[in-house]
């Protein structure tokens, strides 16, 4: 009894509660996005998301109860298994002539690239943690770079530009708190930027198109540009107080494609207005803040790396997703964590939250 109480003494109740509030907001938004007055739309999106949520909560409990060091022990195995799944998706995609990011299991799409984010954070943390204080040499950066580069390339060729680019800042953040010399990291970033023209060459046409549309939405009024303009109209017309739940006209009239997944925030922005949107953004920020806090409080180097990695991952996903709905970021296909419809993203985020809570409550044990 005493041990249990002691273990949960440091349990971050605020983070936990925040997660569930956002999940609830997400379900309401998905329901609104997939229904429409007068027209019958599939109700199954909300139900499917609820099913995923059930599985997700189960995973959340598991990741909280099992010490995160158990996960670190098998970090490389998880990493390799995840890489194999990525390769498998590519091979299956090739057989089916074209791009494919997911497996279909019982009608549910399963996306290995989402889970790769966690596998990479665990693998990098495991490496950096083992190194103790010896991360300040240039040689010690070689293996982490390889660990990042393999999934980066595999995800990029899927092609999933957004997820691939997301892995990079997470990688740098973990190395930074892990003790790598900032001057080496800056050099790596500069080298990466210098390689951008080469990188551009390898992008598919439609990916280039999306990045160009970011600069000028009218360049492609049929595709990505149309979505951005419609999304801005939806969010902008929400005004200060919003049109009310289920009352967003922009969303109900089929104007925004992918409005239950990547563009879910435009539904929230329209129906809940600036005040609602601001509240959601602040909730997200609070989670990021708690995550950094957990990283700061723990004396365990492994735990610090995990918490920081997750904080950066989570924060950037929110910023990029909301940024693209209001035209501040290119449309790169990154879901809004805990809110967007989609099982793989939801499960990944819940596992990440579980790991955070895990690190937090065991901070005095290690």
């Amino acid at each position, binding site marked *: 009894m005493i041990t249990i109480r002691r273990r949960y003494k440091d349990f971050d109740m605020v983070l936990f509660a925040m997660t569930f509030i956002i999940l609830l907001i997400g379900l309401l938004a998905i329901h609104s996005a997939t229904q429409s007055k007068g027209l019958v739309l599939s109700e199954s999106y909300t139900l499917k998301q609820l099913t995923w949520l059930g599985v997700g909560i189960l995973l959340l409990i598991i990741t909280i109860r099992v010490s995160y060091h158990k996960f670190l022990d098998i970090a490389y195995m998880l990493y390799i298994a995840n890489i194999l799944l990525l390769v498998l998706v590519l091979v299956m995609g090739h057989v089916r002539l074209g791009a494919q990011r997911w497996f279909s299991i019982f009608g549910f799409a399963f996306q290995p690239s989402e889970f790769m984010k966690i596998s990479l954070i665990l693998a990098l943390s495991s490496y950096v943690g083992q190194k103790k204080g010896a991360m300040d040499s240039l040689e010690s950066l070689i293996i982490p770079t390889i660990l990042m580069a393999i999934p980066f390339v595999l995800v990029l060729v899927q092609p999933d530009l957004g997820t691939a680019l997301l892995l990079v800042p997470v990688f740098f953040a973990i190395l930074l708190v892990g003790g790598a010399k900032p001057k080496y990291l800056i050099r790596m970033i500069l080298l990466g930027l210098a390689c951008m023209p080469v990188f551009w060459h390898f992008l598919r046409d439609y990916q280039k198109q999306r990045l160009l549309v970011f600069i000028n939405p009218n360049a492609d009024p049929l595709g990505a540009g149309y979505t951005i*303009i419609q999304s801005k109209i939806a969010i902008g*017309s929400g005004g200060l107080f919003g049109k009310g739940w289920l009352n967003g006209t922009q969303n109900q*009239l089929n104007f925004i494609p992918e409005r239950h997944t990547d563009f879910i925030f435009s539904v929230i922005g329209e129906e809940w207005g600036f005040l609602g949107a601001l509240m959601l953004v602040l909730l997200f920020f609070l989670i990021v803040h708690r995550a950094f806090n957990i990283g700061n409080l723990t004396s365990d180097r492994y735990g610090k790396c995990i918490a920081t990695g997750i904080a950066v991952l989570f*924060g950037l996903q929110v*910023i990029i997703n909301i940024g693209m709905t*209001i035209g501040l970021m290119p449309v790169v296909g990154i879901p809004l964590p805990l809110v967007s419809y989609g099982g793989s993203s939801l499960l990944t985020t819940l596992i990440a939250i579980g790991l955070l809570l895990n690190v937090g409550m065991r901070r005095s044990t290690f």
Partner: protein
Amino acid sequence: MRDRFLITTLSLLFILIIAGLFFNQVLLSGYYSKLSRNNSIRVIPISGTRGNIFDRTGRPLVTNRLSFDVAIIFQEIGDRRKLVNLLKRELGFSGAQIMSALEKAGNRPYEPVTIAEDIDKEKALALEESSFDVSGLIIETRSRRNYLYKHFGCHIFGYLGEVTANELETLKDYGYRMKDLIGRDGLEKYYESYLRGADGGIQVEVDSRGHQTRILGLKEPQSGQNLQLTIDMSLQLVCDKLLGDHKGAILVMDPRNGEILALASHPTFDPNTFVRSGTSQNRLKLLNDKVGRPMSNKAISGIYSPGSVFKIVTASAALEQKKITPYTRFFCSGSYNLGHTQFDCWKKGGHGPQNIVEGIMNSCNVFFYNTGRALGVDRLELYTRFFGYGKATGIDLTDEVKGIVPGKGWKRSHKKGAWYEGETLNYAIGQGYLSVTPIQVLNMISAIANNGNLVRPHLVRRVGANDLQNQKPKKIGLKDGTIREVRKGLFEAVNNESGTAKRSKPAGTIAAGKTGTAQNPQGRTHAWFCGFAPYNDPKLCLVVFLEHGGKGGLEPAEIARGLFEEARAGGYL
């Protein structure tokens, strides 16, 4: 301390997002509200037209024409009765048809839903006039594929079909949308990525009554690239005429560079049948015809026994391997005994003593039984492959098949048995397990015409503004002497009074060739002819194949003569 840097960076980004939201939702809220109230942005797609196809002389073969569709925007229907009356009067719709059309339109009330496709121009004009006072009805124009020669050349062009939901999943990244047409066969499929244009569109602001007030964005559609073929349409039409009601295929090619001048396969279909969306009786009939199989291109997808035309390979192999010389003679008594089995020549009384040239000229089976035995199955298999059998020729069409080149290994793995000597005898005269496509036979005769060089047959010489490079010919490695003897045999077959291919002898030029009559388990024999002209400087080679067409020396040889003469008239010889 290091995480302070990260926290600060992320915090700044969050502030940026909040500022962006404030900007859009508070400062610009009025502007966006107005746009939203009028639900005022529409996208009108403009399809890029598909590339045209021309023959080698520049004659248009496949183009696009303007067509008219009738569509309804359910939300904008004003007087329903007026609309119903108009549809009844102008399009002859029945009550039930109108009900189902309205129901269809009601499912997607805010967009135009097509209810009648490709109507007459006069009707379209009449409707367009009436649609001023009947709101909700619009006439849409779009370009449709037009196969100018209908049935003729259908297997070269292929046809178009709508992308399926499954295909769309992977194709949407390449700009395909629902109801887009995609090449389903022939050049339309093979050159899809060149022929297809890129869609464009205009984005307009409309007021609450649906009138355009302002153009917000324009993306020009891009046309696909044109193809110029190696086909000569007048020669193609001759082939189609000569094939007539026969089932079979004709191929005509320039042996020097692999340019196909004509490719016909019968029975045919009209690709225009597939241009309209939805299903139709005619289309189902074509797709379900399992007997005539009009959709299949027999020239590249049909496999048959080659019969005696294959003796060209046997003869070449034996000369190359020095199993026979030009002076070797075998005596034909009318049959050949192997153990207790008797293998017959096609001529009852026998041909008497035969050398290689006479053997080819008379198509003497006994001569080739002897030759085949001397060669053995392994060498025969090797040379069969040298001549390009057993693999695709690489013509720029889809669905080319490889055929079967048998041998000891093949028999072990496919028939689970040992190779019999008797099978070697059948092999040598082009019977047995050996299965070939007409285009492979064309490849073989072209190699003989082109001094032992295999060229890659192709149909397209120019895509857009770019001439396609011919692939370098591949040497089989035959000696000059070998080719000379085989050619002499082919010359005699056509030009000698008693040659088996004498009916193919054209006026005005000297041809050489070989007939074939292939037995098959399905019924009447398949009839073949392959040949080239002029004899001294071959500029054209051809294959005529008639499925269950009887004897190669009769109809195919006569068709070939007609073709040689037409080609001469056309300036090819």
